[in-house]
């Protein structure tokens, strides 16, 4: 599969020497570029407009989160997780609190579980909306961008109702959630669930069967299931290659096993398949949210489990992962029994998904790079941590 001189985002010396004397040009895409979704930098070797080689350069947004974590107490680190994938902060919180609860063996009350699932799914919708918006914008469909942001606004309003913040919510807590749902939330969320599928139709009308969209996405940046897994691709990106793997289903955490929903899988392996997967996921998430709302409306109860005042987990190490909107988000926590983590490693889905980018785009045109980056949906805050 891989050819001489190219190794996952790395360009070997001899290939570089060889290319320097030919008519290939090296072009620097990023770190400031309109469609690298942040400070991603790609060094592309082009022959005409065809990509011969790619080197992915990351780290421009590195904030040393894992080092910071070692000097903070466990609850103090929670707000930092929001800043990983800043457009789906609830999902990031979710991964961290799950790992902590696993480490400490904390029981989370039923109501909090449902609230968490609901918030995580709303986050997934909003994250996918941002993805669709930027992906479509990259391919030139500008109007979709604004339609998506219109609908995302409704979700952000819901977040604001619950915790006062719109983006970096820090709503989850180790052992539960910060507070119960405010009055009027359920009605508003229900309204959202009702209108969202109708609004989502707008995007389909614009691009789903648009010939130009199809010609830009079908058979572009293909990656087989085998290669994808081998290269660490997870989440919607690998489900676009026909792999039935969703952590919510396979290792159900929280209450996902009590809800009725389906994994979105497509077998096209290309940009269009990944697009369809995310479209379907948004609708499935909407289904999950309304089921949670049904339950939350009827029941009542505490939203916080029994958690000691000072969080001092037992010595040991755990790994817990959730299905974040971008893929498998995992937290590996090593505890030495003190109130601060000894070592905390974040398995960021965007980071892992980027590994396969050079393989996807090899031999394609510059325009396809944009489509490919869009289709794996990277957020640089998470890549660089």
């Amino acid at each position, binding site marked *: 599969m891989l050819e001489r001189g190219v190794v996952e985002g790395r360009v070997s010396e001899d290939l570089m020497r060889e290319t320097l004397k030919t008519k290939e040009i090296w072009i620097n895409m990023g770190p400031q570029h309109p469609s690298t979704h942040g400070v991603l930098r790609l060094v592309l070797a082009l022959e005409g407009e065809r990509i011969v080689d790619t080197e992915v350069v990351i780290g421009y947004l590195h904030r040393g989160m894992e080092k910071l974590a*070692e000097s903070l107490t466990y609850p103090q680190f929670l707000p930092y997780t929001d800043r990983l994938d800043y457009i789906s902060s609830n999902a990031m919180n979710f991964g961290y609190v799950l790992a902590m609860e696993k480490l*400490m063996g904390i029981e989370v009350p039923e109501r909090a579980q449902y609230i968490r699932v609901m918030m995580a799914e709303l986050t997934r919708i909003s994250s996918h909306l941002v993805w669709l918006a930027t992906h479509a914008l990259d391919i030139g469909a500008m109007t979709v961008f604004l339609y998506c942001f219109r609908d995302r606004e409704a979700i952000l309003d819901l977040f604001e109702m619950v915790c006062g913040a719109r983006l970096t919510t820090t709503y989850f807590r180790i052992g539960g959630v910060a507070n119960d749902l405010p009055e009027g939330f359920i009605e508003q969320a229900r309204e959202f669930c009702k209108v969202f599928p109708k609004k989502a139709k707008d995007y389909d009308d614009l691009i789903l069967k648009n010939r130009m969209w199809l010609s830009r996405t079908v058979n572009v940046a293909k990656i087989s299931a085998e290669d994808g897994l081998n290269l660490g691709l997870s989440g919607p990106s690998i489900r676009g290659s026909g792999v039935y793997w969703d952590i919510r289903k396979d290792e159900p955490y929280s209450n996902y096993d009590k809800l009725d929903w389906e994994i979105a899988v497509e077998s096209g392996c290309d940009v269009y398949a990944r697009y369809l997967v995310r479209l379907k996921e948004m609708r499935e998430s909407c289904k999950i949210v309304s089921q949670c709302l049904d339950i939350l409306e009827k029941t009542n109860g505490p939203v916080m489990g029994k958690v000691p005042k000072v969080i001092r987990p037992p010595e040991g190490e*755990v790994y817990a992962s959730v299905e974040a909107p971008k893929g498998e988000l995992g937290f590996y926590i090593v505890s030495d029994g003190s109130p601060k983590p000894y070592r905390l490693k974040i398995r960021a889905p965007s980071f892992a998904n980027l590994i396969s980018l050079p393989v996807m785009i090899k031999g394609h045109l510059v325009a396809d790079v944009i489509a490919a980056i869009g289709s794996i949906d990277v957020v640089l805050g998470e890549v660089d941590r």
Partner: protein
Amino acid sequence: MDEEKEKKGKEASKETPKREVPQEPQVDVETLPLVRRVKEAKGEFIDDVSYFRGEITFLVKREHILDVCRFLRDDSETSFDFLTEVIGVHYPQRDKPFEVVYHLYSTSKRHRVRLKVRLAEGEEVESVYPVWRSASWYEREAYDMVGIRFANHPGLKRILLPEDWEGHPLRKDYPLQGPEGYREEWLRSHCASTNKL
């Protein structure tokens, strides 16, 4: 198994009166099918097996990690086709101060396992790149952050930090804000060079 007992002991001693730590259900690790299968096939390469919060950890002999990984991927009973991450951890007080942790997942069998390799200062571990190509980046990160060297890696260089960065920040002896004056010096030299442009 000694280690686990040790852990349990410490747990008990640190316990505050009002806190309840749920007891780990006693599981005999040796009876778990995965453990049995691995021990059967590659038992001589496994130093230790431990079990905590439902997670199985194998401590693998350093020289044989590639062999074990290849087995875990290819065997039909284990079939770990997905490398979740590679982590470097620094334990300065131990004899072998570095630990490389591999998390594996199987999308067909839906199970996970953790492998560990311990390294002394200056020791290298074989790269698992031939088994899972995603290791190329994960190992670069472990090298960048903790300074673990991977033999036969296709291009071991820094990934998140600038290429001329000194030191490995996730080592325990690395100060939170970097060595004294290093940051200022680095910024000064780098910003000066950009100003010249």
